[in-house]
């Protein structure tokens, strides 16, 4: 750990508390409200922001619009939009900009009213665009869930993975969600049936949505958003909260290819880069914030991030190993309750950074004792087709 570079840190965070704004708040308002709270969390102001990162969910050409809306004059403007992992990419780019001396305070925001808009994210049709890839695929009626389900089927076929093993992801995240009042409120507002801890049997007996994925293996569709403030070491030294250092980052994309293995994701490319930069290993991670769009996403990524070998994820997660109160068994998974049981307005990547930061500050509702290192890994797009991977390794002082 001695050789680690500490060039930029997360100094301010905010998670928008409501998951159901009943159509009374829009995504830009969620972004601005979250930004103000995250800046206040850091002890900074709008005028301190000199770098803005935006995934474009508020509208087209967001790089032209978002600074005006916030009322800031940044000189680094980055609109990388790669779906749910955009915020891990933004973190990587903010680290670079701050390291190069181009910026001192970077602001990342997210806002979505997917629930209020009744967006059918998982089970809807595919978009009407005419990219050549889409033009070959839309006729088949594949839902997003079915795409992830194809990864699960292949994983089961190749490695003998079972639905019971996949259900471990769902039960661990629900275990954490029940300890997080905002997650319980979210499930209440979204009218979940059975807001309680779940068993493996509960998960595998829930309704099949797209074989082999059951209802309780699929994330919620909520409203929500949040913000992250990243700052240089000199700014971080004067912030209200202790810094959470960005130790390493990695980026990659993957897409359908003839003869390719869909049980391995782009995370297998991005993660080794991030770990090498950070100078740490998966075994040292206390916290694993891994994008849980579906159970299979986490299982695949645990393997690709290096927590276990490819194909061994099913056995590795057995027995409640991913719970926060099992610190000797490896990292705690998604201690806020995850996309499965706390917050998923469409692009969950920002929440991975928020909860990882809370853990390294000692502020989580499922706090791991003395948590020192965390990984946040975002997956955007569709795991079984074209998708993005953003890995961020975080460490406390």
């Amino acid at each position, binding site marked *: 750990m001695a050789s680690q570079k500490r060039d930029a840190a997360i100094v301010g965070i905010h998670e928008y508390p409501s998951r159901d704004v009943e159509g009374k708040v829009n995504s830009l308002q969620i972004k601005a409200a979250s930004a103000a709270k995250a800046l206040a969390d850091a002890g900074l102001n709008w005028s301190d922001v000199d770098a803005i990162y935006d995934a474009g969910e508020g509208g087209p050409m967001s790089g032209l619009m978002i600074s005006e809306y916030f009322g800031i004059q940044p000189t680094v403007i980055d609109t990388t939009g790669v779906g749910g992992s955009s915020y891990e990419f933004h973190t990587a780019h903010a680290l670079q900009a701050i390291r190069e001396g181009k910026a001192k305070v970077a602001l990342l925001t997210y806002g979505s009213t997917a629930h209020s808009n009744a967006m*059918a994210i998982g*089970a*809807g*049709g*595919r978009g009407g665009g*005419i990219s*050549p*890839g889409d*033009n*070959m*695929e*839309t*006729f*088949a*009626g*594949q*839902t997003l*869930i*079915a*795409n992830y*389900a*194809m*990864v699960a*089927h*292949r994983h089961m*076929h190749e490695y003998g993975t079972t639905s019971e093993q996949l259900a471990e992801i769902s039960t661990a995240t629900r275990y954490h969600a029940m300890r997080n009042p905002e997650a319980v409120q979210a499930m209440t507002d979204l009218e979940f049936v059975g807001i309680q801890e779940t068993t493996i049997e509960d998960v595998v007996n829930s*309704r*099949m*949505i*797209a*074989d*082999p*994925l059951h209802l309780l293996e699929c994330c919620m569709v909520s409203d929500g958003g949040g913000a992250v403030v990243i700052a240089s070491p000199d700014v971080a030294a004067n912030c209200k909260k202790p810094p959470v250092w960005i130790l390493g980052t990695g980026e990659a994309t993957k897409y*359908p*290819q*003839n*003869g*390719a293995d*869909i049980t391995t994701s782009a995370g297998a490319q991005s993660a080794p880069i991030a770990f090498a930069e950070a100078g740490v290993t998966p075994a040292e991670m206390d916290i694993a914030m891994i994008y849980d769009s579906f159970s299979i996403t986490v299982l695949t990524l645990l393997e690709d991030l290096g927590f276990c070998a490819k194909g061994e994820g099913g056995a590795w997660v057995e027995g409640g190993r991913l719970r926060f109160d099992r610190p000797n068994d490896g990292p705690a998974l998604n201690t806020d309750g995850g996309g499965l049981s706390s917050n998923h307005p469409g692009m969950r990547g920002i929440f991975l950074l928020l909860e990882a930061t809370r853990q390294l500050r000692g502020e989580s509702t499922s706090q791991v004792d003395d948590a020192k290192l965390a990984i946040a890994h975002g997956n955007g797009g569709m795991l*079984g087709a074209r998708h993005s991977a953003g890995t961020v390794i975080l460490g406390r002082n």
Partner: protein
Amino acid sequence: MSEEKKVPTRPLPKLTELDTAEFWRGTKDKEFRYQKCANCGTVVWHPRAHCTGCVDGDLQWHVSAGQGTIYSYSIVRLSYHPFFRGKAPFAVAYVDLDEGPRFLTNVVGVDDPGADVHIGQRVQLHWEEYEELSVPLVTPV
């Protein structure tokens, strides 16, 4: 507003999309056309104007014999799409054609998709005909 209720139809590809137009034109004659580079041998899928295997590519069109293997699949039991919601449950699959292209399609001609579709299953093309083109579905051999 017309009294007639519009019946939802399968979403069809656009013949105006330049990379894939040649493929879809071929489907009218029930030909599954794919590209192979005469320079480096790469089978390029989806269709496009350039070779992804080399920078001096020479893509040639070929026609598949129409036989392949299911690489993976799912059974869609919930869809909010106006056409597909009425088709559920139905099977979507990645099929590896024997010539190399892996394409996304539906497996049809099975009584119970949940029980009758498998990874590794041999399938053949089954064309669903429309006015300007046909859609390449598959059915078990």
